[in-house]
């Protein structure tokens, strides 16, 4: 799961882990059906960033709802990962 870094003002501290095709499916869902909730930056490295009006807690809640509802074998691996310190 891509995170939002220092430029966006939003920090996404969660790492998800699970069955690879299900992880890819979730990524694909964010990039297509949830496109309106993210934007892509091409400067630096290309990744998805949450839009400014998005809230990380609400976004994570929606992600977890999708994972449970669609029976994806994905779980939260790290809840407080600091991408800036890796």
């Amino acid at each position: 799961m891509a995170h939002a870094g220092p430029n966006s003002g939003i920090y996404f501290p969660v790492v998800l882990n699970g069955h690879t095709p299900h992880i890819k499916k979730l990524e694909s869902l964010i990039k297509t059906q949830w496109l309106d909730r993210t934007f892509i930056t091409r400067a630096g490295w290309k990744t998805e960033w949450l839009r400014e009006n998005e809230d990380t807690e609400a976004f994570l809640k929606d992600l977890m709802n999708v994972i449970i509802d669609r029976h994806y074998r994905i779980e939260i691996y790290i809840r407080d990962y600091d991408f800036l310190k890796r």
Partner: protein
Amino acid sequence: MFKLKYQDVSRSPINTMHNLNPLARSSGKQATYGDRVEQLEDSNLWQKSVRAHLAAGRTFDVNLIPLIAKVPLGEIIIDEDIQRRLEVKHCSNTIGGAKFDPRYLSALICAKSPTTGKYISIDGQQSGSTVASMVHAGLFNTDDWKTLEYPVQYVVTDDLSFARKAFGIVNGKGKLKQSKYNELRTAVFCIRIDGNTDDEDDVKLERKVSIAETHDCFAVEQHSGLARKPGTFTHISLFMALSESELDMAFGWHNKYFHYEIVHNSLFPIFRALTRDFEAAKIKVTDTLLEEIAGLIQNLFGDLEQFQNGAQSAVRQWSRARYGYDVKWSDEYVAPVLLQLYKKMGGEEEIPLSLLERFHDPKTNTNIASFLDQEILDLAA
């Protein structure tokens, strides 16, 4: 014993596509050229092109815009070095059956020589030849095709290299082609908005679209915002190639098991095989098989898109192992890989051998499904 059970996914109580379906009704929108000018001026790409012309000091003469005239067909010359040969079959088909209507004819495109005054046909000879021959055959209410004044769009030039380039532009090079979706929309609107059922092909297409809509599936234009909504599909050519009963089964399956997903293009070749190969082998496609396939897709891949990604990778590995090089991917691989995997996972429903043995290597007793990612295959162990 097949263990990959399909588990229900909650269905959204509101399907916005019922109101947004672009094929359900005319948009009712009209635009002026003023609207279009504003639209282009808003585009960076357009502004970049304009700036390049201005920087080079290039402006254009309105007198060079093509002119319109009515010219007797007998006075128009066809330059055979520019135009294609006469397509007898095309002309015969054009007037074949009850479809021909003179209002569908288009103007000829010509170069008019400023020195001789003669019109040289750049495009439209099939139409011109058809009309002249129809007059000759007594199919029009006039006697002499040579004096029939036919609409011509022309430019004044002796430069035949210009005419050659113009022929290329008129016939596709540099011209924006009509998308398959636009073809579909035209056919559907002829039926739904205009109530015109004269064209049997239009009627058949509209029926196919109706079948999709019955199952909450909707044809939309590629790259439109609607193409991200569950139940929408953009692969119109694949859709058009399936029969009504094949589409009924395919969309019914999608709506029952994957109503929360966009319709993936691999749905069409899978159900083409599930109907045609099964029918040839006189094997019934059972409800159990359809549900177990849905369970397999859901449990192992999440959706058909991820399944196809896995299948493409497996085809690559299989072809390298068998032939030493990569074979080109095509949708003919989708159904065999899916059904071979189904058997590998313990599926007990009957599958035609023509699908199970396709792309099978008897020497190593492997098929493409044997080359799926190990993470998938481990679940079959």
